[in-house]
């Protein structure tokens, strides 16, 4: 039996598929197109969510194409248009190609508590990347370790804005998009409406986790309990676990994780300003630390 992703691969013209870590509903493969290494992303379209999946794929590719081109490699680039398998009106699978990134997923780097300089580098990198999305009024909505990669040259790059939403577009109905457990913001509970400051919370979670090994809001247990904690609990100050951190840097992280969105940095631009005020210029001119 031919798998749906093989049909997508044939449609799009890639070979030598090697599975990578799945991402949400997507199957992800390292593939080859001519001499170029690329990443194939393929989604099977099953009832009753065909329209939703197709729209989401369209949106992801559209967003990536628009934003990545000007992101100075901070957002993963798209290497193809959307390929549909089957009747274009009712396709059975959809796929596209993205650039292959060398280096490591953040997931692989979260093995022991980081040094402050490395965490600052991560936060700066995330803020620089998010700026390209927020400038376009786009919210990533799924800043989880699997969606953040450190390239071989040390540049942090965001992947998979599959849940991203342009704020002026209507949200997709019929399929709830909560983000990844452990990495959600208080606005990602039912009834919430993620905004750029939700990504700031997400960036705060990643840095907090990198520094402490703890989730700022414990995601364990029932979904409802986690949602309740997200909207009612303030994360413990990062210095609770890392008293060695500089006060100013710790304050930046804590502000990212404010339960009330109005008290956070409202978007990546504000976060970048705060990071600059720490005394260093973020990302582009910061010496890139070596993550553990």
């Amino acid at each position, binding site marked *: 039996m031919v798998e749906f992703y093989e049909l997508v691969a044939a449609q799009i013209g890639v070979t030598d598929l090697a599975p990578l870590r799945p991402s949400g509903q997507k199957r992800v493969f390292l593939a080859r197109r001519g001499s170029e290494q690329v990443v194939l992303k393929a989604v099977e379209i099953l009832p009753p969510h065909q329209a939703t999946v197709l729209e989401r794929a369209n949106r992801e590719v559209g967003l990536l194409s628009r934003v990545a081109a000007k992101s100075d490699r901070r957002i993963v680039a798209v290497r193809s248009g959307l390929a549909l398998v089957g009747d274009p009106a009712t396709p059975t699978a959809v796929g596209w190609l993205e650039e292959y990134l060398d280096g490591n997923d953040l997931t692989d780097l979260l093995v022991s508590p980081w040094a402050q300089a490395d965490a600052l580098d991560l936060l700066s990198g995330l803020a620089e990347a998010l700026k390209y999305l927020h400038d376009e009024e786009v919210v990533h909505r799924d800043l989880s370790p699997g969606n953040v990669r450190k390239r071989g040259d040390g540049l942090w790059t965001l992947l998979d804005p599959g849940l991203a939403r342009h704020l002026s577009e209507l949200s997709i109905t019929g399929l709830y998009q909560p983000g990844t457990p452990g990495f959600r913001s*208080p*606005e990602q509970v039912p*009834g*919430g*409406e993620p*905004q*750029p*400051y939700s990504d700031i919370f997400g960036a705060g979670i990643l840095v907090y986790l990198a520094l402490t090994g703890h989730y700022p809001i414990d995601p364990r247990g029932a979904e409802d309990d986690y949602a309740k904690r997200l*909207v*009612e609990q*303030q994360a413990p100050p990062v210095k609770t676990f890392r008293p060695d951190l500089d006060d100013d840097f710790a304050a930046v992280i804590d502000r990212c994780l404010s*339960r*009330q*969105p*109005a*008290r*956070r940095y*409202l*978007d990546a631009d504000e976060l970048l300003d705060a990071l600059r005020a720490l005394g260093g210029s973020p990302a582009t001119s910061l010496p890139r630390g070596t993550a553990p």
Partner: protein
Amino acid sequence: MSVLLHDGRRAGHLSWLRESLAAGLADGAVLNAFFTPQVAVPRNPSAADIIAELRGQAPAGQSPEILFDSATWAATLPGTDLWATYGSWPLWPRRVRSDLSDAGAVADHVRAVFDIQRSLGVPLLAPTVTADTAAGTQARLALDIAAEAKRQEPDCLLTICGINTFWRAGPALDRYVGQLARLRPAGWYVIPLRDRAGYPADMTDSNATAGWLRTIHSLALRNRVIAAHTDHLGVAAAVAGASTVGTGWDQAQRACSGDAFRDGGGGTNVNYSPHPGLLARFTETVARGLRDLQPAFAEAMRWGEPIPTDMRAHRVQHFQALREQFDTICNAGPTPSARAAFLRNVFTGADIAWDYAIGLGAADITAVEKATWFDGLRAGFELYALAEGI
């Protein structure tokens, strides 16, 4: 740290405004479209005349702050019918009062409000509607109006007006305030619209008080917050970060409800004797009763002031006491935690004083009055402070 005086339905208050500003008891005024006309009528000068007069009497370089509140939040309330003065203002270009039915109508109304404010030479204060929940259609409309106002005038002040059910909405309120904050206005004008007319404001809903203070706290981290129609509750608003408090001489100016915009409504107007040591205002009769029982204690509770014997003395004492209370909290420190520590000391003293006063057996100084003036405020404040960890 400033005090603004709201106008009210009582005619002839220009002289009171003028006097209060000249004496340094207040820093400015908020003119309301329901109470100050566009064109002068007998005993009610026009907004332009009031502004000119108040500015004209100010010492050089010390122009009072004057705002014009279009009061769309009141005009769109069910039951509002006090249209005589309001109707003099060209606030609805489509000639349908309260028409905010589509984006075009919202834009037209916002533009009309700003045009009036420009013509008066006052800061641009955006209109809003009263929110009853943090996630309902009114709240969404208020957000749309705010966004349109910000689109038209990036440096405008935004207005938030809500009733208790809005302020007590917990995390939904926080999410809503986050969306408003994203608009990044020049400042905030925050109105806690009371469910019931009367003074002091009904403070029995501690969660609503806590939500109101939490919101001021969040907004004040970025911009100036004017706590409109707040009066003696300004001691708590100052802890949360409000830098300006709105008050007045009549009940409806001090604690605003929809009743103020209905024919025959607005509450009764009583001359109160300030007793800042009890965080309360008493009628002259009650104040005299307390004085007769324990003169030294009563005088201490009045911060040494005599019981006012006429309306003017009442106004002067009230504004003096309010300003001193508000400034004292603000001067306790720049942070909410420093101010909260100070206010808790004030509360502790007031609590002991209330119990002593009740023990004296004075008429109308009982646990009921203590609850009305003191316990509700303290409970709402403590709920807010507990959540903030201050």
